[in-house]
């Protein structure tokens, strides 16, 4: 079933095929260049770059998640950062527990921040996080359940459009404030950091980093295929119908709220995985990930890449984040916001369908020109 789906995909969908190729290429070539090429070589990819690419891939995964709900189902979530962060925290808690007695206070039972705030014992919601499987489960469940409860309420009440967007924003804002609080037990503003190792592997070692990078790549590929499957199935068409004419879809007998809830939860879980992969590679998770402005940025990645195309989301996330890395280092450091701001403005005006839409846009324009010319010639000839 799956094989045949992928087979069909590769045969019939050029863009999807290219996306898969590119993903496979970065999955294979980058590690190759990192390991095999000698350090001094011009082809060598330093681990620094590998981790950077890993970060981009995490963001790409996150963008993909958003594109599924926004691009296809019209749910503009301005709170997707929350699901990302929750996945990240779940992973971060595991990593914190792995520190054991290697923290600054040498307390095997409590993370450092609890020690210096005089906590006596590990709170109940930290229990179980010393087990990887448990944390991995929570990476999916924490965002999944939140999305389920939130979505169940909102979709059932038919909260749509900006109203939905704004309450997703309220959600992530509330979570940010909550996680900021030291009393909340997640390290307050500083969040969770100072990780040592994952499943016994040293997080600082190049090998671990490479593996994490590859896992991220695989996750992106898998999520891409999953999303592709959903959107190519009849369900994909139902989602588009909901996006375009929700009430009409309802009159056709589709339970709109179930569909919305389903993709919202799937999307939240993908975002959670992205967060979980992000944290060990970046080395810190803190409440600023819940910042509503971060979530808005995710929307921007998707929009820049091209909404409703999946690969556009991947491309947009990588492009914008690469631009950020590039602009914030070196000579642009003081002006980078001008460039980024300018980029956003220019691309919205000139690329209404995103970078991905550019090709189509050019094609259409050319076709229209041609048609007009043809008709004009005919006029002249007549």
């Amino acid at each position, binding site marked *: 079933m799956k094989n045949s789906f992928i087979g069909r995909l590769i045969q019939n969908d050029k863009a999807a095929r290219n996306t898969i190729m590119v993903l496979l290429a970065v999955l294979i070539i980058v590690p190759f260049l990192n390991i095999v090429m000698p350090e001094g070589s011009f082809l060598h990819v330093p681990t620094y770059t590998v981790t950077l690419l890993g970060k981009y891939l995490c963001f790409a995964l996150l963008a993909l998640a958003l594109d599924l709900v926004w691009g296809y189902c019209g749910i503009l979530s301005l709170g997707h950062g929350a699901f990302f962060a929750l996945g990240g925290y779940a992973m971060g808690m595991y990593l914190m527990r792995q520190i054991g007695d290697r923290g600054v206070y040498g307390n095997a039972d409590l993370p450092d921040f609890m020690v210096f705030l005089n906590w006596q014992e590990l709170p109940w919601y930290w229990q179980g996080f010393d087990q990887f499987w448990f944390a991995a489960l929570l990476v999916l469940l924490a965002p999944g359940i939140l999305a389920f409860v939130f979505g169940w309420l909102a979709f059932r009440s038919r*909260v749509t459009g900006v109203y939905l967007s*704004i309450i997703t924003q309220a959600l992530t804002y509330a979570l940010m404030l909550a996680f900021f609080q030291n009393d909340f037990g997640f390290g307050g503003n500083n969040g969770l950091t100072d990780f040592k190792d994952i499943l016994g592997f040293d997080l600082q070692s190049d090998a671990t980093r490479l593996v994490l990078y590859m896992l991220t790549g695989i996750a992106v590929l898998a999520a891409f295929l999953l999303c592709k499957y959903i959107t190519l199935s009849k369900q994909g068409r139902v989602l588009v119908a909901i996006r375009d004419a929700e009430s009409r879809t309802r009159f056709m007998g589709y339970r709109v709220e179930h569909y919305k809830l389903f993709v919202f939860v799937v999307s939240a879980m993908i975002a959670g995985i992205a967060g979980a992969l992000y944290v060990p590679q970046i080395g810190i998770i803190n409440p600023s990930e819940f910042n509503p402005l971060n979530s808005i940025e995710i929307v921007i990645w998707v929009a820049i890449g091209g909404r409703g195309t999946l690969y556009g989301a991947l491309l947009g996330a990588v492009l914008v984040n690469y631009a950020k890395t590039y602009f914030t280092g070196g000579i642009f450091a003081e002006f980078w*916001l001008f460039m980024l701001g300018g980029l956003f403005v220019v691309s919205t005006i000139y690329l209404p369908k995103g970078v991905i839409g550019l090709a189509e846009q050019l094609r259409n324009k050319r076709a229209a020109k041609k048609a007009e010319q043809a008709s004009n010639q005919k006029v002249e000839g007549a």
Partner: protein
Amino acid sequence: MAGWLGALGIFLMASLATAADFETELKTLSKGSYSKKAIAVQALSEIDDARVLPTLQVMLDGRLYVVKNGGAIVAEEGESFRNILDDEIVAYTSRQVKKIRINNKLRRALRTALASIEIKSKIADVRKSSVQNLIKAPNKDLRPLIFEAYKQEKIPAIKELMGVALATIDISSDDQETRLKAVDILSLTVEPAAVSLLQQLMAKEEGQYVEQDAEVVAAAESALKKVNGKIRVYSFIETVFFGLSLGSVLLLAAIGLAITFGVMGVINMAHGEMIMLGAYTTFAIQQVFPQWIEASILIAIPAAFLVSGAVGVIIERTIIRHLYGRPLETLLATFGVSLFLQQLVRTFRSNNVAVVTPDWMSGMLEINGALGFTYNRLFIIIFSLLVLGLLVLLLKKTLLGLQMRAVTQNRAMANSMGIRSSWVDALTFGLGSGIAGIAGVALSQITNVGPNMGQQYIIDSFMVVVFGGVGNLLGTFFAAMSLGVVNKFLEPAMGAVVAKIMMLIFIILFIQWRPRGLFALKGRFVED
């Protein structure tokens, strides 16, 4: 200042003895620790010398210096210095003189000392503030002085305050009768200092009342009950006021957005920056016309409207107009604009700038010791209602308002009706931005003005507009006010952070109940 020193000569002759005291005490002001200086101040205040009052005043203002060479005490007057003793004006460089430092403790001593002199002032306001200072620091020695003033006083409110001042002294009298009477007087006031005196009568040590007299304790108890009842009422009113004032801040911040987003449908992420530009305009005006600080706000209102409005028009003409029919994209572009503007301001000056509050907006309207309304917030409440009212009139009662609404609902059809939609769009966006600019003027009076200030308001503004119901100004008003008031009632109980979280959860839940906000647009067209 020349005046008082001019009249001085006579005194110099008249009371040589006190003049000598004055001289020695004056000298001590320049030496020794703060506590020694405090004693000297106390001593000075008891000397009957016309130079005392101005000297203490100068000292409190931080303008009293000692000449390094010779130790003469001088008062700084602009570029030069005036010798306290001989009234001579001398020019010293800043290296030749040393400031006579004061700290808070000394300031308090000076204040009390001045109060004991100023209670005899002819100006009612001076007497009033002097009594208030005396209430804060009851001093037995001053009782006769206050009593004298009390007898002379004609204005009932001040007389009452003086009575309280006396009672604050009498309450520690040895005489039970006096104490009881004092309690009686104190039970009539809600001055915090007085209330705390009553509370102290109720203090216990090891289960025993410190106050020996049971009758006094009983009187204090019933007095406290009475006072606390009043205070509760006042504090309720105060909380409502806090809520309305927070609400009016939210309203001001949101109201421009209610136009650009609510009416036009532009998800205007640069709204906060329009507020910021307005605030910076206020700053600029204060810089350019430092002599008009008092009027600066009034000048800034139209100026900020024009500046932010113009920027809004430029943004609309260059960017937004390409995006009609693609509302979500406006989010993206205006976010870019917002980043751009922030960094632009940052390049000009990365830190906050100081906007001065004019005197007429500083301080508070004191109803009594337990209740007062700060002028800046009163101003903002009134101002926000004014802006809202004008806007409602504009939108509902003028042809332009009608055209604004028509254009945003169906741009093509509006054009076909002969409405120049491009012009109306620019004007509408300019109006929304201009109002944001005005909000910036008001906000500059209560919070910081810096490159980040816009970001503080953008999220709240969207919440308010959406909570109220997009496209409904009245909804925006009620949303802002109710969020403000509810927040202020929650805050004392659970703290600012949790209160804010509760507000957000409340909004989320409320929207479940009313999916289109407080004042939802109704009708069959909504779903289509």
